């Protein structure tokens, strides 16, 4: 038994009921119940020296590089889905946003908004999943906050995470660095996350083997930068899918893009589900994919490096950037025609007949 556990037992004679217990309003009230939740659930799972100090903030040493910071809120429904849950997602998403700059992610903060009535067993599951994801991503969760709102004012659990990373000198990876002729590389199959979630939505259950691709990409990115420091841009095509990300980057860079449909990897099950639902896989969310822009003559070598890395096995060159004052994203379709790929509008809606 650790020293911490002994201390907890003195303060909180009855441990949290992590089997049948539920979050109630006292867990966010600033009193003993909240202290116990933090001590018995969060502090143990996220254990690190910065958090263990028990301050309202964490004090970390200088990183030696430029600081990179990113923040994101997670409200996914359902909170447990094939291939992940809101906990792992809240680590991967923010780690990836920091890493897309080329930085090494170091620290996370985590803010929890819990709905009264949330089973403590579910919270424990989420927290443990966050801890495991943080360990895998080699980041420390150094500070956090917990609030509880009345039943009906939230949906189980919302999490906001902020990430800090350190960026070495000389690296400049950003949307405005994309140049005409740059190759566009995609790290793997598209649509897995969105379809995995749809498959579990309360009102749309279908049997499928599709799992979310939620994953930390910092390791893949590190290997890519070591092999080719002159990567112009990295971006993760999350909400809005590949279509939204390519359009965003076309606008940011002032260039057009052209993509070969046949070159874009899509799992047959995802393609089939999209077909059935009347959804375009180009607009479906990903949580463990990136697109990279680099000089065309470096692209083949970079893809080879990516394919040797976890989460990069299906990497492929899918197109290139080109001058276009209208900043359009074109698709050369498998069918042999060309069409513009637009942002999709709001939630992709199914066709009804």
């Amino acid at each position, binding site marked *: 038994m650790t020293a911490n556990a002994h201390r907890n037992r003195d303060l909180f004679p009855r441990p949290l009921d992590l089997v049948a217990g539920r979050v109630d309003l006292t867990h966010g009230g600033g009193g003993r119940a909240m202290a116990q939740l933090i001590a018995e659930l969060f502090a143990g799972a996220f254990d690190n020296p910065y958090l263990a100090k028990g301050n309202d903030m964490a004090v970390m040493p200088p990183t030696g590089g430029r600081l990179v910071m990113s923040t994101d809120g997670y409200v996914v429904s359902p909170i447990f889905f094939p291939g992940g849950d809101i906990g792992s997602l809240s680590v991967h998403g923010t780690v990836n946003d920091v890493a897309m700059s080329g930085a090494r992610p170091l620290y996370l903060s985590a803010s929890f908004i819990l709905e009264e009535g949330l089973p403590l067993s579910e919270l424990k599951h989420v927290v443990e999943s966050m801890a495991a994801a943080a360990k895998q991503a080699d980041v420390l969760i150094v500070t956090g906050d917990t609030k509880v709102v009345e039943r009906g004012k939230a949906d189980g659990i919302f999490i906001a995470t902020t990430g800090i990373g350190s960026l070495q000198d000389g690296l400049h990876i950003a949307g405005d660095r994309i140049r005409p002729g740059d190759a566009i590389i995609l790290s793997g199959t598209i649509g897995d996350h969105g379809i995995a979630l749809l498959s579990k939505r309360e009102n749309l259950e279908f049997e499928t083997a599709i799992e979310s691709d939620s994953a930390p990409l910092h390791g893949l990115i590190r290997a890519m930068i070591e092999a080719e420091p002159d990567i112009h841009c990295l971006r993760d095509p999350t909400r809005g899918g590949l279509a939204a990300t390519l359009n965003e980057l076309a606008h940011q860079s002032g260039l057009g893009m052209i993509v070969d449909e046949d070159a874009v990897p899509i799992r047959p099950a995802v393609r089939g589900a999209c077909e059935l639902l009347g959804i375009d896989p180009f607009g479906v969310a990903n949580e463990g994919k990136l697109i990279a822009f680099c000089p065309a003559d470096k692209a083949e070598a970079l893809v080879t490096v990516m394919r040797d890395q976890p989460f990069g096995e299906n990497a492929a060159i899918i197109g290139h950037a080109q001058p276009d004052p209208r900043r359009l994203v074109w698709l050369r379709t498998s069918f*042999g025609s060309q069409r513009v790929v637009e942002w999709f509008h709001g939630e992709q809606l199914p*066709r009804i007949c």
Partner: protein
Amino acid sequence: MKFASEFRDGSLARRIATTIAAECQPSRGYSFMEFCGGHTHTIARYGLETMLPEAIRLIHGPGCPVCVLPVGRIDSGIELARDHGVILCTYGDMMRVPGSPRMSLLKAKAAGGDIRMVWSTLDALKIARDNPSREVVFFAIGFETTTPPTAMALKMAKAEGLTNFSIFCNHVLTPSAMRAVLQGGSLPLEGVIGPGHVSAVIGIDPYREFSDRGMPVVVAGFEPLDLLQAILMLVRQVNEGRPRVENAYVRALPAIGNEKAQQAIAETMTLRDSFEWRGLGTLPDSALRLADDYAKFDAERRFALPYRTIPDPKSCACAEVVRGIKRPEECPLFGRSCTPDNPIGSCMVSSEGGCAAHWLYGRHRMSNEGRKAVA
């Protein structure tokens, strides 16, 4: 993907397009209406018009369910959620359809209406079972394709004795709309591409009235090769001067349709005397209401919903677009104040709407810049 990818083979498509071009006779016109919004979507998405010879002119028809629903019906749906406090269930496409100024189901939901997007009528039934103290209404729209699921939901609700479930029935009939478009006579039409999935329910016989009056009809599936094959068959009918109804979708539909589905509809629904369509006006015998045996499941009777005709927004050309009189880009609002992000007319909402399909897939294709860009 079996039964889909084979029908998206680009090289086969180009071969059919070449045959079509070779068989078009210079002295004839080949203006064909694709009735169904699903076909409009495929044509735009795959750029089929750019593969076809100039002699072939494709005209978008009224077969997009949300496009032909008049403003008054949307307003009734909003009224159900807002004033009667019901849980209103509807298909996703309906959420953004503009009702009376600055209102839609999506906005009514944001303003507190309990409006839920469902993927099937079974979801609406489940919501009714799970909320026995609430009235649950399913906002039913669509042509013959979406009518059987509504009919089955009615039969299930009756068998279960559900007392808090009703249907706001807006189901419409394809042959009536086709008749209205063809009778107008304002369109130079040489043939009609019939919607395959409607025929999967009603069969192909209902179209004989049109071929008997000299209009070639070919019922087609929804992949690019299906449509090109149907166009080739129409070209041949025109050339032979022998109009008839042909089935180009034999892999999916028997000529008689689906008798079980027809029975379920006949048991639960009956013809309305008249129904207002956006763009086509008020048409007799063109839509369904619930049969008297199912009166207690009829939201219009249950909530005494009044029906009001509300004019379309000024300058909106949806009415002309659904009749094929105007092309989307000929509407003064197209791409200016009316876009899919902020639709003014219903044709800009569903991806099956002529305007939305043209916005998503077609509008850049004609420019030289675009051609250069992909060269």
